[in-house]
């Protein structure tokens, strides 16, 4: 695992992303992790790339190789370096404690050499690519492939940009760094015959293209970190498919416009992070009441309020499930990995259409920017046709059948009996007429709940990883999938009978979980939120309420960082 530590304007993200892409193309498993400060330019930032030929589940706890751009990068990250690991530092900026004999030190005047190589006009811009050249040399990477990737990235209209990048790369590659590695790393794997081709992207990209595969063509939103890159992608992509994404004046307009698209027959998407979702809440309640399909993406960050805008937290689960006045059932899904961001978007679209309901996708800041390689999806079997059905409807159509699932008729459809439906947020009868009837409010509230109970019955019971029974079951949701599974694997290697269960459907929950819980002595829910007033995290509280099982315990954390494998092991084995 390589950790690059510098400042946010140094371009370490793009250098790291190129490494990740190289690994993906070389049939390596790869996972990245990055932190960025919430300032516009400047502030400490890291990018971490972990590659391996086995299954790479988490971004890793400890680095084999640390690149420090500055003194603060060195001081803050040296403890993440494994004993025997290599510190590569910019000797123009960093003075390491060479008396600490745990590490191998490689000091190179990176800033000076970059300026020298590029002729000085760009100041020290290009350090990232210089370092990429150094890393390529040290790890004996395939430089032809890397140069190809550089050409893809920088080869645009201005040829000089690509030339500068290649100059910096060659300068780094040509530097006589010598043999600094104590361990031999096998980077380049031979292509395994018949192995599926991999695609490499981050979670927000996977989610955006999952929506497109799922037949979503319209959306509206307002920019907010870490959601914005999804809307940026969709703003450019939807028009290519004949659709449209609108940047609105605010979050309330965005959700309302998305509901306008959906009412018009085009299932739409809106998205945000916690603060923006708070603003959208009233309209989401309307979607629940009027039974309009809608996809709401929440790329969670640390809260409440403006909170930790660039850190990760899973503290919006209650908001997703319960946020809103009245009984307003909605579906809540959470992707486990970057790959799952793609597939869960398709599933969200399917559920929203089938049950005519708002569907939340709870991603988070770590999935948003994490780059992973995964098997190329079989798009042919996945792509959904978004054609709107405007065929005239026969007489007797009821928009809100009390004993059935609502399926709205999009405007533009002729009603053969001449009766046109109104969708409404007032309590209504089967025809959509407002009513205050106590019996109808009871029946319609039940109708809106029952469709989600029907959905629960069709959700497959998730598989248990590890053994089918034993001492402890670790339950997770969302981006904690990697560290939890790695912790379970590591514990089982040591002989502990620990298993994991990862929930992707959080509301409604799949049926039959109690049968799985019964086979374990302890059930521990690991999640990145606070233990709350009564000692349980948000999912743990819901599971305890649902199953009334006192053996359900909670492992929580609120430091704004992803779980480390060590933290889960400590929490589970204590």
């Amino acid at each position, binding site marked *: 695992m390589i950790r690059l530590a510098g400042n946010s304007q140094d371009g370490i993200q793009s250098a790291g992303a190129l490494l990740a892409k190289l690994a993906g193309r070389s049939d390596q498993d790869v996972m990245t992790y990055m932190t960025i400060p919430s300032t516009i330019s400047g502030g400490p930032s890291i990018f971490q790339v972990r590659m391996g030929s086995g299954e790479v589940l988490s971004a890793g706890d400890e680095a084999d190789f640390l690149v420090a751009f500055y003194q603060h990068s060195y001081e803050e990250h040296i403890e993440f370096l494994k004993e025997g690991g290599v510190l590569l530092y910019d000797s123009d900026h960093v003075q390491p404690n060479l008396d600490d004999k745990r590490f191998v030190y490689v000091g190179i005047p990176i800033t000076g050499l970059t300026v020298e190589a590029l002729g000085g006009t760009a100041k020290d811009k290009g350090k990232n690519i210089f370092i990429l050249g150094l890393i390529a040399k040290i790890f004996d990477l395939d430089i032809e492939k890397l140069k190809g990737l550089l050409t893809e990235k920088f080869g645009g209209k201005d040829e000089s940009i690509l030339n500068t990048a290649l100059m910096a790369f060659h300068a780094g590659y040509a530097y006589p760094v010598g043999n600094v590695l104590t361990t031999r790393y096998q980077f380049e794997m031979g292509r395994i015959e018949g192995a599926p081709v991999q695609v490499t992207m981050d979670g927000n990209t996977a989610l955006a293209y999952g929506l*497109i595969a799922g037949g979503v063509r319209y959306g509206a939103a307002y920019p907010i970190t870490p959601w914005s890159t999804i809307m940026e992608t969709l703003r450019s992509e939807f028009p290519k498919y004949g659709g449209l994404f609108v940047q*609105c*004046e605010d979050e309330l307009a965005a959700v309302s416009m998305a509901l306008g698209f959906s*009412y*018009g027959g085009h299932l739409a998407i809106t998205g945000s992070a916690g603060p923006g979702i708070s603003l959208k809440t*009233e309209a989401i309640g309307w979607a629940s009441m009027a039974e309009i399909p809608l996809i709401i993406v929440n790329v969670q960050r640390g809260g409440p309020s403006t909170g930790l805008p660039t850190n990760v937290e899973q503290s919006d689960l209650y908001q997703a499930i319960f946020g809103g006045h009245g009984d307003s059932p909605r579906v809540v899904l959470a992707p486990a990995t970057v790959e799952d961001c793609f597939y869960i978007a398709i599933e969200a679209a399917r559920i929203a259409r089938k049950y005519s309901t708002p569907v939340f996708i709870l991603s988070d800041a770590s999935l948003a920017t994490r780059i992973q390689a995964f098997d190329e999806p079989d798009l042919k079997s996945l792509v959904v046709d978004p054609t709107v059905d405007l065929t005239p409807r026969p007489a007797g159509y009821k928009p809100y059948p009390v004993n059935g699932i609502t399926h709205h008729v999009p405007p533009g459809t*002729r009603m053969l009996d001449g009766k046109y439906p109104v969708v409404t947020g007032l309590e209504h009868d089967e025809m959509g007429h407002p009513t205050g009837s106590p019996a109808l409010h009871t029946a319609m509230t039940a109708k809106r709940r029952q469709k989600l109970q029907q959905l629960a019955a069709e959700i497959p019971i998730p598989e248990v990883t590890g053994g089918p029974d034993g001492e402890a079951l670790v339950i997770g949701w969302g981006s904690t999938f990697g560290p939890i599974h790695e912790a379970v694997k590591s514990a089982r290697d040591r002989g502990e009978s620990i298993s994991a269960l990862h929930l992707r459907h959080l509301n409604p929950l799949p049926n039959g979980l109690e049968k799985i819980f019964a086979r374990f002595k302890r059930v521990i829910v690991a999640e990145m939120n606070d233990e709350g007033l009564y000692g349980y995290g948000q999912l743990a509280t819901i599971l305890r309420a649902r199953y009334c099982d006192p053996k359900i315990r909670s492992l929580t954390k609120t430091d704004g960082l992803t779980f480390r494998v060590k933290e889960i092991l400590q929490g589970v084995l204590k």
Partner: protein
Amino acid sequence: MSLAESIPATSPAPEKLTKKDLTADHPTWCPGCGDFAVLAAFYKMLERRQLPHENIVTLAGIGCSSRFPYFVNTHGGHFIHGRAVPLASGVSLSRPDLHVFLFGGDGDAFSIGGNHLEHGARKNINLTYVIMDNFVYGLTKKQTSPTSPLGFKSKTDPTGAIDQPVNPIKKLLTAGATFVARTHATQINHMIQMMERALAHDGFSVIECLSECVEFYPGAFDAGNPRKGGAFTVIDEKKWDGTPEDEQRHDITDELAAYKLASLPFPGLFGVFFESDRPTKNALEKKWSENTRAKLGHPTDLELLQKTFDRMK
């Protein structure tokens, strides 16, 4: 296939669209409410224009006047307070085959939804918005509204309103609405005329319609009603006939002149203040999408997505 191509052509309406076809639930408004006349004018306008029944969409936010969609037998929706402009914008932008009509009151338009009105106008979304302005909150039983005049006594201003009221026409002009008109619910023919011109306008067309709340602000608009001794003065629009008297008439493409007319004291003038042919967001977005698709060679959805994934290998 692009989405526009995927929408089948609707078959023509078999019979003439009449008021009977358009009538739905009996209005829940108080007897004597100005909104009845607005509804009648809307029916009449639709009868005259003979739009395909299924392509008419009636939307609203919250308020007395926002009950409108229940009383019109067309596709429709009753949304939340203040957000009907973006809802209607979503329908308009994604469904060019539809005629989107939006109804609401002064609270919806100028208070809770004020920002959306600004941006709907700025973006020039193709729809028609009739704001039934009664200068009071009626559904919640007499609180001050954003258009209540200074000194108006309400349950929230028992000694008289002290906040400067919104001037709807000025607000719409500065926001960039491309069709701005004003009418009075007692003037049925004028209302129909304004609605017809708003419908014919390609862009964000707004009509402020003074509609009396007989329950909580009776007599509010008598000054604009000749039958109550007031004056219903209609804007004299330029005819471009080269006559000397035409010099004095109002050029509806002149924004500054419109702003000056909107500054006249109550009851002010009625008619079209401003109209501009600035391109709609609907047209600009469509052009972008069509150009992009043409550059790509009109690929199928699958071809396009596969190409993207090939680049990520």
